[in-house]
């Protein structure tokens, strides 16, 4: 057995142990709330990478994810789920963090593609991040390059199940409680300005 796999397995076990404690401690109202938030999901589909090309098929007539109550919306304010569809370059990561922080709780993140898990095909690229969960809370990974639409749908179904049964600790709770950790990671990579600066003025014009 190799070192890395052992570490990984331990990580997995600790995650599973953590979630078993939460499972049974929900009231009837919480159960109902969970049921409704699993049944209706508003998605802000931020096409950060190649994964964006498999989103139109998922949302249209071939795969029709609206059956499951998943609808696309335009703004992060209205959304429950953000799909980070593929690798994030450093410039995109700033926007992803901003989008994530604009969403109101409860919010979930589905990371699409191998490149969000460990860099995937771009593991030695200087401009893409390798591990999304260091910077924002991630609830579901869909592996593959590209993942098929069925895989994305499966990801949604699994996420809905786990929300309904309350079997995961949602990423946004981790993000809120461990904000210092996430912020330190963000600042280590992006510098002090972890969110895009729009005052920067290229052609010598003022925003006012």
């Amino acid at each position: 057995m190799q070192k890395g796999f052992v570490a990984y397995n331990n990580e997995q076990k600790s995650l599973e142990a953590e979630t078993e404690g939460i499972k049974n401690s929900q009231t009837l109202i919480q159960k109902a709330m969970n049921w409704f938030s699993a049944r209706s999901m508003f998605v802000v589909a931020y096409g950060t990478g190649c994964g964006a090309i498999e989103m139109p098929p998922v949302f249209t007539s071939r795969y029709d994810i609206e059956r499951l109550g998943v609808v696309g919306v335009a703004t992060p304010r209205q959304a429950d789920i953000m799909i980070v569809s593929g690798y994030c370059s450093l410039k995109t990561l700033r926007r992803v963090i901003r989008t994530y922080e604009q969403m109101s709780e409860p919010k979930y993140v589905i990371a699409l593609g191998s490149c969000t898990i460990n860099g995937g095909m771009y593991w030695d690229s200087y401009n893409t991040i390798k591990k999304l969960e260091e910077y924002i809370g991630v609830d579901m990974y869909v592996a593959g390059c590209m993942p098929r639409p069925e895989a994305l749908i499966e990801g949604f179904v699994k996420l809905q199940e786990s929300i309904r049964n309350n079997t995961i600790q949602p990423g946004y709770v981790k993000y809120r409680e461990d904000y210092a950790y996430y912020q330190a990671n963000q600042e280590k990579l992006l510098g002090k300005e972890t969110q895009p600066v729009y005052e920067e003025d290229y052609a010598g014009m003022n925003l006012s």
Partner: protein
Amino acid sequence: MFIDLLIMLVMAYGFGFLYYGLYRNISARVHGRFGPSLAQSFYDSIKLFTKDTSTDFGWMFFAGPIIMASGAILTVLFIPYFNHGERLVGLSPYGNLIVVLYFMVLGPLGNALGVGSHGNPFGAMGITRGLTRLLGLEMPFYIAVVGLMIANESADIGTIMANQAETYNIIAHPLLFIAAFISFLGFLGKSPFDVVGAPQEVYSGPAVEFGGKFLALALSQSAIFSFAKLLLMVDLFLGGADSLWDLILKTFVLFVASVFVGNVYGRFTTAQSVDFLLKVPTVIAIVGLLFV
């Protein structure tokens, strides 16, 4: 009386969302797919009510959706549900068509107040578009309604309904109906007049900063408001309803007609839609007015 009003509101809420669900289902069939469940819109609204709100732009922002919702609620309360009925007439004996038309404008104005306070340019743009479009919508609709008022020599909705016992206004005044229907499409916010919240252009417009409970309130008011508009059209042109089934049938037919138009046509720009509304339906309405 009070129970009556409550039933009217609940019915408007329920039917509004049911129709919205139907709209999603019918469009899904046009698209060649299965579509969500009929109750999906209920789930959406309940879920949105349980969400947190992450925004704070001052009290004016909170007041916006509330004014919007009260506009919709007042509109629906002043429209009688049934033909010469004792029940579910709401406040209509105390008001008339002119009051209803006034309340219909209240919603967008309240929206404008709320949206103006958050400073997002997309929201301001959406509101500007909405008010500009309202200018175009009101002209043909008001002319058509005035035509009806002149024909019936009354501004009371109950009287107009009662006068249609033999021939519906849709047959008696077809031109007025066409004009009113085109602007009714615009009032519903369907293609080709859906310029206000166009996601590809202004990023869902006025609702750009609304999330969680505010969005839920906005959705509920739009459901109630859509049903109110359907009711008004049925009352004015289809002779009102005798029974519950009659009501459902007539609103449904009108609704389906609007859904199909919305699915086939693209979106005009703001200028084009106002241009179109001020030319085509207004001219039709004026010609219709001459025949009255």
